[in-house]
């Protein structure tokens, strides 16, 4: 899948891509002959062939399926129902429950994560002894798979004998049935996401911090700005495109959240808890398609997820543009 969440997350591009360089007419004629040729298509062909077969065609087909009443066992047939699936989806309490959970888990998992990553990057930006060690260790959760991380954390958050409850009891607090509660289960899932991604985002911020020209800090120093003021007025504004980018990428990941809620109870149930207290949109879509065999409904949910992502990216792009204009 070219669009797997992991891959998207890795797309650590800090700013929107520059417009593709058009051949400027001022260039010498010789250069144009050398680089302007049809071979370009041959080079991009393998990418686009795979892309067309396994991404573009599926996207379109998903849209088509979402307009049908069909099931997995009946993959070629199905009856045309127009927008019925979308109407049903918008009236379904399961959809709104999953949408709400996706939103709250998304906020719980993204906001503290990015704030901590920013602070961590700031610390990593000092001249440290053992710098490579700290950076590598902080990236280890990123190398751990969702499945492995979730299995471990679901044990740590276990009701009986879970290490976290053992500790809570040791300091005289009450044990928590993490999986059963709405807030507690969502916090626990957010902790897994945060654990996996904080170090990664810290490295992205660190890279951006290191490309801030030192003169900016020197100037701030001369003006008598404290370290904290420097962080607020030099570091944060310089990082704005990167921060915006990580917000977009994290949000796209949050909308697709699937593996953590699937495995959190340990046994891979698609309901997201006994009362769906941590069922996300990704999980709902999987349940509709692969537990209930309502492929049309699942396709509709998938498109709804895409729409949500488009809105989020659009809003972020607008905010980014407005702020950039305000700076000018």
């Amino acid at each position: 899948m070219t669009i797997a969440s992991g891959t998207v997350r890795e797309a650590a591009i800090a700013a929107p891509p520059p417009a593709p360089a058009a051949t400027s007419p001022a260039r010498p004629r010789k250069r144009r002959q050398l680089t302007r040729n049809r071979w370009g298509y041959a080079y991009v062909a393998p990418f686009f062939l795979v892309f067309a077969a396994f991404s573009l065609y599926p996207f379109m087909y998903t849209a088509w399926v979402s307009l049908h009443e069909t099931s997995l066992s009946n993959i070629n047939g199905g009856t045309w129902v127009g927008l019925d699936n979308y109407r049903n989806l918008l009236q379904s309490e399961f959809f709104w429950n999953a949408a709400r959970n996706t939103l709250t888990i998304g906020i719980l998992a993204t906001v503290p994560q990015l704030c901590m990553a920013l602070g961590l990057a700031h610390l990593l930006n000092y001249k440290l002894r053992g710098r490579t060690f700290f950076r590598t260790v902080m990236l280890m959760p990123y190398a751990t798979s969702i499945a492995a991380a979730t299995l471990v954390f679901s044990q740590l958050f276990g009701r009986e004998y879970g290490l976290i409850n053992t500790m809570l009891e040791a300091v005289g607090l009450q044990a928590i049935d993490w999986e059963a509660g709405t807030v507690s289960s969502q916090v626990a899932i957010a902790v897994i996401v945060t654990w996996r991604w904080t170090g990664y985002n810290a490295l992205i911020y660190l890279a951006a911090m290191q490309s801030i020209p030192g003169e900016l800090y020197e100037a701030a120093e001369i003006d008598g700005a404290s370290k904290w003021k420097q962080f607020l007025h030099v570091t944060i504004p310089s990082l704005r495109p990167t921060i915006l980018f990580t917000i977009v990428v994290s949000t796209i990941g949050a909308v697709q959240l699937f593996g953590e809620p699937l495995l959190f109870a340990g046994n891979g149930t698609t309901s997201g808890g006994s009362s769906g207290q941590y069922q996300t949109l990704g999980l709902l879509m999987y349940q509709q398609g692969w537990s209930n065999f309502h492929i049309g409904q699942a396709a509709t949910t998938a498109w709804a997820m895409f729409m949500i992502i488009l809105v989020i990216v659009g809003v972020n792009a607008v905010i980014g543009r407005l702020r950039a204009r305000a700076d000018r």
Partner: protein
Amino acid sequence: MATLAIPATDTGRDTPPAAPATRRRGHRGGSKAGKPGPVTYTLLTLVALVSIFPLYWTLVAGSHTNAEIAATPPPFLPNASLFDNFRAALDQAPIGKAIINSVLVSGSITVGTVLFCTLAGFAFAKLQFRGKGLLLSLVIGTMMVPTQLAVIPLFMMIAELQWVNQLQAVILPTLVSAFGVFFMRQYLISALPNELLEAGRVDGASTFRIFWSIVVPVARPAMAVLAMLTFLTAWNEFFWPLIALTTANPTVQVALAGLGSGYVPQRSVIMAGTLLGTLPVLIVFTILGKQIVGGIMQGAVKG
């Protein structure tokens, strides 16, 4: 965030002197060259412990019996029962097969992705052809599309082709990556001088000859970074393999997902299995960690 020609900003020492860096950062080792105090080290050590602890706990819990982990206070050191639990985990889930499958799948995906993305990245960086801008926006646009949008038709497709439970079902759809194309393009724009291409062309080399003998050698460092990141992502890929494969022929992630679904889940066996499935990446990560860190940071400055 301009397209800087600085390769790994990891230490700053790696920067070749020839890099045309017009906007280099003022201080070596970061713009804030201050000396860290004990508070900084304490905080960082704390974060490092939190990062490692769940993995360490996997080892501890995986090396005790259920009763032993349930004791108060719980054990904090690994124990020799680890190998019994490994054996039990291997009985319950085909983790050995899963590791071989994951190596095959991730290896194929890595080779394909690096090759195809270098080809396309080169074309987008250095060749002119009609519709280039549009195609490039298409590549970038795909990064926003959720996996969920593709899995239904893909599942129908592999069902039709009778590929369910076969490895090519998880290899082929993941053979290219939009991020990879963009990553290679950004690298080649700055790293590959046009003069070199022209020299090759003047010597009468064919376009593909130029690719193999000029572009690939220049692109090698970025290809290595892309390979590591792709392998890691492919190894950890969860959603699509879970749909396309079953525990009869799983990748590591599918096998792990199946581990916990027994009627009486045995915590220590699950942990031992998780450890087995994670060990290969952790070993690779221990060896190549520094390069992976550099690669991620490099990806962040490009663009």
